[in-house]
């Protein structure tokens, strides 16, 4: 059940490479995780983002990277939004800006998200993209263009390395419980 979420641990890698999907400005959480499917993980997986890019849910594959405009993930606080993109295999999101709660929740789930000015104009869907996460460096491997984003704060980078906030908390409690 989607409301209960699913957990998929991801190994942290400094450099990742994948196929880009270019999204517009203001992609909202209702588009990513539609309200009417909140109780149905399978349906959410089948319909995520289809109002924006019709073939996205059927054609996205593991390791793909979303490149978006401004205000990505605006709308409700539902964490099924970053979660469902992770479940679909999305390895990272680079956008011109993110809505606040989506940004927080992505780090909580160890989904790397990076803010890069003007990024959406530099990519077409299908381009090969490379990201150096700690350096916040993005390269379009088709055009050779390099861009620099905003560096991730050390506390948040740590969250990515620790596999997210839940993992961090569970291991902390476990070691406290042993004492």
């Amino acid at each position: 059940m989607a409301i209960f979420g699913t957990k998929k641990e991801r190994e942290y890698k400094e450099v990742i490479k994948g196929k880009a999907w270019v999204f517009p400005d203001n992609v909202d959480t209702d588009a990513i995780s539609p309200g009417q499917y909140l109780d149905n993980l399978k349906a959410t997986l089948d319909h995520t983002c289809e109002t924006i890019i019709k073939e996205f849910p059927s054609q996205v594959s593991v390791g793909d990277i979303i490149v978006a405009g401004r205000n990505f993930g605006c709308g409700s606080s539902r964490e099924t939004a970053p979660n469902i993109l992770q479940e679909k295999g999305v390895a990272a999101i680079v956008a011109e800006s993110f809505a606040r709660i989506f940004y927080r929740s992505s780090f909580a789930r160890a989904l790397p998200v990076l803010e890069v000015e003007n990024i959406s104009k530099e990519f077409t869907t299908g381009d090969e993209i490379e990201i150096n996460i700690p350096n916040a460096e993005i390269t379009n491997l088709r055009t050779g263009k390099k861009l620099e984003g905003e560096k991730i704060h050390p506390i948040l980078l740590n969250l990515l390395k620790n596999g997210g906030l839940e993992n961090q908390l569970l291991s902390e409690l476990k070691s406290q419980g042993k004492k």
Partner: protein
Amino acid sequence: MSGKTIAEKILAAHSLSKKEISPGDIINAKIDLIMSHIGTAKVALDFRKIKPSKMRKVFDPDKIVVLLDHYSPAPSEKWAAAHDIIRKFVKNHSINSFYDIREGVCHQVLPEKGHVRPGMLVVGGDSHTTTYGAFNAASCGIGNTDLFYAYVKGELWFRVPSTIKFNITSNLQHRVMSKDIIIKMAGDYTAEIATYKSIEFSGKTMEDLSIDSRMTMSNFALELGAKFAFGVPDQKVANWIKNRTSEPFELVKPDPDANYDKTYELDVSDLEPQVSCPHTVDNVKPITEVSGTKINQAFLGSCTNGRFEDLEVAAEILAKNEIHNDVRMIVTPASREIWLEAAKTGVAETLINAGAIITNPNCGACFGAHGGLLGPGEICISSANRNFKGRMGSEAAKIYLGSPATVAVSAIKGELTDPRDF
């Protein structure tokens, strides 16, 4: 050293890291209050992952409020099961501030029951938690994993936001409401003007507004991207809260020399009623540009505009009129207290007489869960806060957002209509 904004003062007072903070810093801060609704079911399941089991404790049961407002009463077996998980969880953890399905929508019930006070740092498993800014609290929404962490640790990381100020002056025209001001702001400044930022509303217009009207603005400010959205910290707020709780509090005011990213001046004397057109909140037009658009449904409710003041305005307008035959008008009071007041004052009777349907206080229609969904091609005027594609059912439906007055008048005419003539 320059002065501090409200956000900077409250975060500094709660910081577990350094006490001297400035915008952009990331700090750990202790939390005064956690609110969660349906997401509590996920927290309950997360708790089962904690090992050893003796570590399964909430940080402080008296600092947590849980409500059942989403999917209430349960529209399906699945949600009934989720509610059941939540009821057991709050019992097991002695969370006494639990409001079952009878009470109403979180952002109305928390202030009503005196849980929210000036100077508090509040997080909620719901985006519109910004509403409590009207009560001078720093409050924002978080996702489920952050919620789980906060439940156990009572603290979270926060990025200290910079602040933008909206100074609003002049008197509003007849039937123009605070909703029209905030929708206009979304239109003029976009849905991301306040992303990662704190808002401070100020000026004569804000001071004149009722607490109900101010809550609408702090609520809708989330749709402008705001992290916090503070109303004016004045005596009106203090009096309102004193009627709800005997706990002590002090208003937090910004320093006169506080640093703002930007100050926007708004003169609202000529402001027309505004609507957010499909499918984004910042696709805004004055009502005169879209009047005549036929509607199938009129929704008056939600944590944005389901308060007594809103029902009262609608009743005033509907007193001598009937709702158009082709329109279903659904009214959802935001809380039991409001419903009761509407019953006692005759407001409910007027609405029902005019042909409205009044539901129990809940979130159902607002987020497209149940009790008032739209079919393909249908058009709704709604007093809520979101008009995204598919928000209230069909993706092929259209939602316009407007004030309670605009909703009521449009329900009578069967088409989007300027409320100033009523």
